[in-house]
């Protein structure tokens, strides 16, 4: 059994002023950052606010910034972190702070409400069911792995540095849009919205979102770039535009 120090962000109610507080606690084999936070909660700081659910990397609740990097606390093993220095644990900085490690992520839920919902084509079979090939849904299934941890939103510079929450939906909802646009059954068209309302053009594909995705979704390469290409083909490619004018 050894000890490690965790430098945890503590704030006053309402998310006003705040500061790091150091807690030293005993650690044992296999522990993750969330275990340490729980131990500190149980033994030293019972009112420490921390959001979590599954502790298995499946629900995406315990997002935080660990040593400055956006990560899930439950998937950050202590044996992969340098414990000679205090481990800093702080809330996601892109969202308003509620208390300590907990942020107000309600903006994300509002964004989803503004996107066009799934609209399937008519059923393929008389019994009202559809037929799809596995190879056609593989790419959609990749996007549907998203656990809505919002780490990609946290790290996106359009949101984090430029505060464009009202104009830009962020990587999470570009992935969500891609899942709908590439869904073999869906019939709706979201390209106009992606261009004008959701401002996909703001993304300059720095791939920060892809790097922090705990589900290893290829956010930039498989979702955002193909969507950008579709938008370009539709609205900016002169040949396609000409063809469309001719064919109606």
């Amino acid at each position, binding site marked *: 059994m050894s000890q490690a120090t965790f430098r945890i962000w503590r704030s006053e109610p309402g998310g006003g002023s705040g500061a790091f507080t150091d807690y030293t606690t005993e650690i044992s084999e296999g522990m993750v950052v969330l275990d340490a936070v729980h131990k500190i909660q149980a033994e030293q700081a019972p009112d420490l*606010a921390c959001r979590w659910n*599954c502790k*298995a990397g499946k629900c995406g609740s315990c997002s935080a910034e660990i040593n400055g990097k956006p990560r899930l606390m439950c998937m950050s093993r202590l044996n992969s972190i340098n414990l000679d220095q205090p481990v800093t644990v702080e809330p996601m900085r892109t969202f308003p702070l509620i208390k300590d490690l907990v942020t107000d992520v309600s903006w994300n839920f509002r964004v989803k409400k503004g996107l066009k*919902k799934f609209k399937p084509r008519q059923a393929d079979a008389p019994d009202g069911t559809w037929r799809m090939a596995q190879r056609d849904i593989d790419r959609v299934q990749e996007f549907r792995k998203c656990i809505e941890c919002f780490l990609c939103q946290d790290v996106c510079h359009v949101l984090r540095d430029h505060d464009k929450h009202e104009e830009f939906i962020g990587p999470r909802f570009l992935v969500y849009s891609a899942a709908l646009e590439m869904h073999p059954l869906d019939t709706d068209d979201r390209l106009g919205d992606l261009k004008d309302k959701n401002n996909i053009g703001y993304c300059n594909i720095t791939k920060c979102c892809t790097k922090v995705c705990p589900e290893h979704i290829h956010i930039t390469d498989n979702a955002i770039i193909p969507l950008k290409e579709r938008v370009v083909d539709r609205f900016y490619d002169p040949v396609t535009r000409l063809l469309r004018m001719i064919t109606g």
Partner: protein
Amino acid sequence: MAAHATYSYDVLVIGAGGAGLRAAIEAANAGVSVGLICKSLLGKAHTVMAEGGMAAAMANVDDRDNWMVHFADTMRGGQYVNNWRMAELHAKEAPDRVRELEAWGAVFDRTPDGKILQRNFGGHRYPRLAHVGDRTGLELIRTLQDHTTYLGVTVHMEHTVIELILDNGRAAGVLAYDRERGRFHVFSAKAIVLATGGIGRAYKITSNSWEGTGDGHALAYRAGAQLIDMEFVQFHPTGMVWPPSVRGLLVTEGVRGEGGVLRNSEGRRFMFDDIPDNYKPQTASDPEEGWRYVMQDKTARRPPELLTRDHVARCINREVKAGRGSPHGGVFLDIAWIKERIPNAEEHIKRKLPSMYHQFKELADLDITKEPMEIGPTTHYIMGGIKVDGDSQESTIPGLFAAGECAAGINGANRLGGNSLSDLIVFGKRAGEYAAQHARKGSAPKVDDGAVEKAMKASLAPFERGAAGENPYKVQQDLQEAMQALVGIVRNEAEMQEAVQKLAGFNERASRAGIDGHREYNSGWHTCIDLRNLLDVSEAIARSAIERKESRGGHFREDYPDKVAEFGTFNISTKRSADGSMQVARIPIADMPAELKQVIEEQKQ
């Protein structure tokens, strides 16, 4: 003291896992106003952790499957103390509920001819589980969540219900607080649906998230509803055992469905050693036949690793106790061995079990395509819960409905894997439908101010005691240790009596729990409130288990190791008496109609 806000809905749903969301959708579609309260953010409920799939006799992979086989499998798994009407409705309606999810955007894995793929699972005679790799729960919850988003349901996230309030004996509303600010809110409703999930946090080793504190069970119990079958707690055979910090996390039954085998420290595949008589006709006689079953050979029978969960869990327990366990107190589950049988086994495993691969790689630093996993039993699910009408899901309190894990009946003494996700959507829909009907007929109830005031005051008491009071985390930990040790996978009278004594002590300590700080997002305070529910459900489990002097399904007593026919004729109920003590009673199971009896007989052959 006044509540910060009051709300009024026709239907109020408590819980936003699969059952709660499906109930909210159905009620909203019926045109009534719907409020939804959840303890976490939307989309984070325990359902998200479900891995294997949802059982529905769609016959997409094996055309011999139909509702009658599914019904018979469920009744046999539940050792015939199930609510047969629920088992019947579930088997009949699950396929439509699954197809409906596809119409709402869910993307299930496919068969070669493009239909929804189905996989093998424990206790199911044919491959029956519609699934998405091993992240079916996420697909289910996300589909329902996204569909709900467009229906005008008002969602109150990160709110916890403290008390259920009645008006002349019928459900009238609830008092809740929001985690963010710690403010009180009063909700009145013509009908209330409880969909709060399970009780796993009453135990030390559990697969459940922090939310599984038996809230719905306890709220209904304290309001005077009847609970049944609380002794039937399912210990899932395969939880992670190493490293210690992940102990209890689930390893999906899908691993065994895809060919994973259980071995002890001597390398012996011990599940072939002990096959119950009633399962012998359907179980493979040797490993060769078991493998053919995994490969979907219709002439083969299932391997013994896919026997019901209670049986597999006890076999593992036996191996560990006999000193044939793995280094960290479990046994070995090996899927890597299939490389002897199929080419590209590594890719196959990663494609079929991506979530498991990820979980072991990240948390245990182990590659399941190369090495066996160490696993052991973990508290997973409670078959018991709020007694409901099989058709409407209404509890013994008018206007109070329950669906999903907090409702009892469909699973009897033991739940088959995959029956939970389909239970959520079948009975979530029914609860929403009948709650909306009830709301349409009913007048607006009155929520008694005095009852609200009393509940608010009681819930703030831990602040008055401050840091000098008992540490609520410590009381919770002690409770978990006691339940694990004394009312666990193998039970006896003396230990359970000791548990009941201890519970009285924990109740006393909980009433002295104190907490410092502000009300805003105060985890210690929330633990004080959760504790009350955990203590109520723990007592119901212990007292019911004492009453059932036999072994059946998830309930195993070393002092009564056999199944007793007489105990197959009733459920055990717990109810709060006027003086506040817990009443335990035996309530007879209604006679099964002749046509259902015939279905069971035919399927036995």
